[in-house]
């Protein structure tokens, strides 16, 4: 697919916000899905080689949004993409979150994990849920779009490791205090955080869905490069993060087997 880059806006030193126009994409996308996006506009250069996976952060008015952090050459190149240009990307890929109605839910996001959570918050709110978002980052630069998030949540609890914004400390602490009040928990962020969130939920017997990140080459189940491991009964089974995921039941993930 192809779409016009409407906005490619720097949020702070690390984060960017990208808005792309594409009816085709928008009509197909589900909350929790991702896409593979070509970081540059040139067909004839092959470095970087592969498209990069990014979570869909919102969908509205025939446009969709991505939020990304510049970490390497692909995201750097993306950050230099000129507004108005046409960008190439895949169809929406992967599975999606289970969407409840009229329930109390907690969303836990760590750093760039906010991307899919943004759209999720908005969607669940529209479905009548009470939505609490626990959003943690290393510093104030790692918690973005706070105004927009406030609008789409009932409670927004921000934490930073260094206290430069919100409460000082890990996001899992305030979340843990309230876990039992929720019907369902959704999380996206670094693996150690997801693991802790899942353990907290399992202990509290609250269902939890997490969105996982793995390096991806194809994004559609062919390369077998993005394996994650689930515990099913006594067995450890392999799943492709890109097709059977990126959203998994946090209670089933074999955390110690992940890379």
């Amino acid at each position, binding site marked *: 697919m192809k779409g016009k880059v409407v906005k490619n806006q720097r949020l702070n030193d690390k984060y960017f916000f990208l808005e792309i126009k594409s009816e085709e994409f928008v009509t197909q996308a589900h909350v929790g899905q991702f896409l593979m996006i070509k970081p540059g506009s040139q067909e004839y250069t092959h470095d970087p080689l592969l498209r990069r996976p990014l979570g869909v952060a919102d969908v509205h008015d025939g446009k969709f949004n991505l939020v990304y952090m510049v970490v390497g050459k692909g995201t750097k190149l993306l950050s230099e993409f000129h507004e108005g240009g046409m960008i190439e990307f*895949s169809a929406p890929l992967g599975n999606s979150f289970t969407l409840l109605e009229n329930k109390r839910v907690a969303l836990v996001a760590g750093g760039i994990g906010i991307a899919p959570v943004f759209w999720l918050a908005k969607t669940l709110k529209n479905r009548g849920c009470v939505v609490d978002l626990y959003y943690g980052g290393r510093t104030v630069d790692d918690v973005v779009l706070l105004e927009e998030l406030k609008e789409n949540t009932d409670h927004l609890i921000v934490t930073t490791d260094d206290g430069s914004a919100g409460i000082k400390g890990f996001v899992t602490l305030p979340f843990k205090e309230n876990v039992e009040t929720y019907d369902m928990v959704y999380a996206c962020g670094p693996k150690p955080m997801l693991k802790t969130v899942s353990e907290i939920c399992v202990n509290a017997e609250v269902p939890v869905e997490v969105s996982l990140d793995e390096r991806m080459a194809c994004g559609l189940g062919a390369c*077998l490069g993005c394996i994650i491991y689930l515990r099913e009964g006594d067995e450890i089974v*392999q799943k492709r993060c890109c097709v059977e995921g990126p959203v998994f039941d946090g209670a089933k993930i074999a955390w110690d087997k992940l890379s």
Partner: protein
Amino acid sequence: MSDRLKTTFCGIEFKNPVITASGTFGYGLEYAKYIDISKLGGISVKGISLKEVQGNPMPRIMETTSGMLNAIGLQNVGVERFITEKLPELRKHDTKIIVNFWGKTIEEYVEVARILDEADVDMLEMNISCPNIKEGGIAFGTDPKMTHEVTYNVKKVLKNKPLMVKLSPNVTNIKVYAQACEQAGADAISAINTLLGMSVNIHNRKPNIYNITGGLSGPAIKPVAIRMVHETFRTVKIPIMGIGGIIDWKDVVEFGLVGASAVQVGTANFIDPEIPLKIISDLDKYMAENNIGNFSELTGTVNLDR
């Protein structure tokens, strides 16, 4: 598409000379959702073994400059499940099916080949070159005597299907291996598999691939692949499927000129599933514009006069 793309390879008629490479196109079905796979010349499926294989621990892939490393560890559902679960679905699409296969011993190779020979597939591609698996696999493709032996033994049991042997580029002299295959009765050669490479994360000082080393593929390796197909073509008479770094129709023509009768597109499928189809239509256009009646007219016509 026109007749000019029709390609006879080992007596099999492919719609066009563009086949998707093993390990980069799953069992074909993964892509059927996104592109019309019946437009492909053929599909070489992920390497099949006698028993189901789980593959290597993660991480398994890493991008490098204009290339990627992989050490999937030959994960596959095994030959039985392939035939019962995958093949019937795949056969609904009108394209040729090449089954890439491997074993850890000659007996395993022979056994898988025997089963596939009776299955509803078009051609076998024997992978003796995968550098990822530790047990034996590597030995077949980097020792000419072993190459001969496994080819000879497999060929002996095949009654119905042509045998293509896929060569490893990680050798001093690929001509010796091509010759070993031809002499052992192989019907065709495919070349090349991945180059053995490695990459390290300088922050945590760990290899970027769990297996430590992995196979390098993508445009970065094309010059090596072109050279090896050239050398192979000058050495043997059996037809060659050219593989390595193909991204567009120009690459396909280049492989043709040095001796490929057909080609396989690998890593490019990851970049964009549309690429093989785009190659096919661009190639058709190029051939029409240049009055090339059939892809075979290009094969091996590089001009070496000076």
